[in-house]
């Protein structure tokens, strides 16, 4: 008897409620103003591009995707407000994070509300280990993986005997330096770390530190500076002005477009690594990457950089998981990503560790023509 009532009720609802294919809301929260504004804008543009591509192919689960983009102004308190707005607007997923403190502030808010939170760029280890979000996913590489690549180059390829660090004084910089030093230990590095100089993220004048480093004259200086729009280009120029002979080895991911644009040929000879270059192997032979690069260039008139790739991959990974599980539920989709491999992203096959970290593929490069951002890939 109750079964008939339940069936009747279900039929009643099915006919009474208008069948509306609601749009799926893809939220983005990145800095769109301030110092990191242009970077955040690039990532957001990339997300929009991929969403347009998905819509052109019929959408996701038969529904159209809509991007809701918000500006966190690189301020955690503002990010929290934006996250609350996303919750109110019933976003189905939020792709966020250029500055780690903003991500860390938004995480618990989004997690509590059951909204899936994919961190595209922020690098802090706490994002995955902090337990604020048990379903955390991060696309950008972590300091741990980065350190291995750089240490390998310095020890095996460069065969440096003396190494110095020029490190940004915060958890990101100090964390990277510690990770590299740990790698040195694991690899039984025969050389020595002879000096460490630190600076604040906002600094633009490094002559004091460079003077100290020049006096020590190590074989290599490992530089960690995330201030791609002002500090790092200034540092590169001052490094050359000081005529420091030591090899400039940049931490993973710091050599972004602005650094080349501003410091130009001063960059020549710098060796670093990153997780995406549209025109270097292995990425230039991945069909999805080539398609993405062409579409990005067409839509925005510039080649996509790593930030753009991270934004694109975030959407692709999420969309794949949704398609595979036929669900928008946070836990279901997250579990289809964490510890799993997603095919068909701009990175090729995207393999995630159980903790949500995407395993990166690195390109180690040397700058041959800084003015035109021409790089030469080095063997790893």
């Amino acid at each position: 008897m109750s079964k008939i009532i339940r069936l009747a009720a279900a039929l009643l609802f099915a006919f009474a409620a208008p069948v509306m294919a609601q749009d799926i809301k893809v939220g983005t929260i990145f800095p769109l103003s301030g110092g990191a504004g242009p970077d955040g804008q690039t990532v957001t543009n990339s997300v929009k591009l991929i969403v347009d591509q998905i819509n052109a192919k019929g959408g996701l689960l038969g529904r159209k995707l809509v991007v809701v983009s918000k500006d966190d102004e690189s301020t955690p308190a503002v990010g929290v407000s934006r996250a609350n707005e996303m919750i109110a607007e019933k976003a189905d997923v939020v792709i966020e994070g250029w500055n780690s403190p903003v991500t860390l502030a938004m995480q618990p808010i989004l997690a509590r509300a059951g909204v899936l939170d994919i961190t595209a760029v922020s690098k802090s280890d706490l994002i995955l280990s902090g337990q604020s979000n048990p379903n955390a996913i991060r696309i950008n590489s972590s300091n741990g993986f980065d350190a291995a690549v750089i240490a390998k180059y310095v020890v095996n390829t460069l065969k440096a005997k003396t190494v110095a660090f020029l490190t940004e004084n915060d958890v990101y910089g100090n964390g990277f330096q510690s990770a590299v030093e740990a790698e040195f230990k694991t690899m039984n590095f025969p050389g020595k770390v002879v000096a460490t100089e630190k600076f604040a993220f906002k600094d633009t004048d490094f002559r004091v530190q460079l003077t100290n480093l020049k006096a020590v004259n190590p074989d290599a200086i490992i530089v960690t500076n995330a201030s791609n729009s002002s500090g790092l280009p200034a540092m590169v120029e001052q490094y050359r002005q000081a005529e420091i002979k030591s090899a400039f080895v940049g931490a993973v991911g710091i050599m972004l477009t602005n650094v080349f644009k501003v410091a130009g040929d001063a960059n020549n000879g710098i060796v670093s690594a990153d997780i995406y270059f549209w025109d270097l192997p292995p990425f230039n032979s991945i069909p999805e990457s080539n398609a993405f690069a062409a579409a990005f260039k067409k839509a925005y008139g510039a080649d996509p950089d790593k930030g753009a790739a991270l934004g694109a991959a975030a959407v692709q990974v999420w969309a794949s998981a949704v398609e595979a599980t036929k669900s928008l539920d946070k836990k279901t989709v997250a579990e289809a990503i964490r510890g799993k491999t997603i095919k068909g992203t701009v990175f090729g096959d995207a393999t995630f560790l159980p903790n949500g970290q995407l395993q990166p593929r690195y390109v180690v490069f040397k700058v041959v023509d800084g003015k035109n951002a021409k790089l030469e890939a080095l063997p790893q």
Partner: protein
Amino acid sequence: MSTIEQSRSGSMSGTRAAIFVVLAAVGFFLPKLLGGTSVAYSTLTTIAIFAVMCYGIDIVLSYLGEVSLGHTLFWAIGGYTAANLSVKYGLNGWSTALATIALCIVAAGFLGAVTLRTREFVFSLVTYAAAVVGYEIAFNWDAIGGSDGIVGIAALKLPFGFATFSGLTQEDLWPVAFALLLLTLLFLARFRHSKLGTAALMVQMNPALAASLGIDPRRIRLAVFVLSAPITGLAGWLYAYQRAYVGPDMFETYFLVLMLTAVVLIGRRILVGPLIGTAILIAQQNLFSLGGDWNKIVLGAVLALVLIFWPAGLIGLFRRAGGSKLNW
């Protein structure tokens, strides 16, 4: 006072008490009245917390006539105390609140003593310097959080002997935030008529008279400054539980400018001035955001224009337009 005046003031205060109770009740149910959504709760909780933060700086501005640029220090002390003690030692809300009050008093005592003989812009600059030093310490001292701060602050736990209040969601935290706001308002209303409050006002407005009455301006200054600190500190304390994350961003000018704007926008020594100012600013940021750059232009223009045309705050406009003589 004649009996007529006494009874009139008696019934006046009776009416005012009634009005207050009604407003308090409406205020408490405001989130429900506005839809009961999580956004309503979180926005109003944020407004309540930020308003309490502003009252600290308001006391210093209204009663000492000085602009303290260092109150973010107390805001951060509250946040960091709550975060560190609850995450590292599992202390409950009462303990962390008491620790916050104690630390704020100590910090304000030191800073107040240092600035005792400074006035106006030197006072402002010195308090600003203190905030900068505080920021640098918080940023570089990994033991208390470092540059990435402390994540995973557990829900607020306030044991009441027979039951424990646990502030897990925004809905749960609202009564605590509202209670804190109410307590602050009551405190300020009392303070205005207290010995210390009236003495401070006298020192500010007529130093000669105050001196002749034997009031020591330095003692008053220190007392008022020290009193203002735990208010902002407790706001920071609750903020840590609301956001579940505390970092050096607590020192950012974002909070300082919010405090200053909310306090001067409506007017000085108006009890609900900072509350209304905070509500307006948060509403603009959340509901009428025009993007980071335009928001700055609007905020800056509003600040500058309001103070240029109505140096006493928007209340000047209200009064000029023939507003009532309500003693807010």
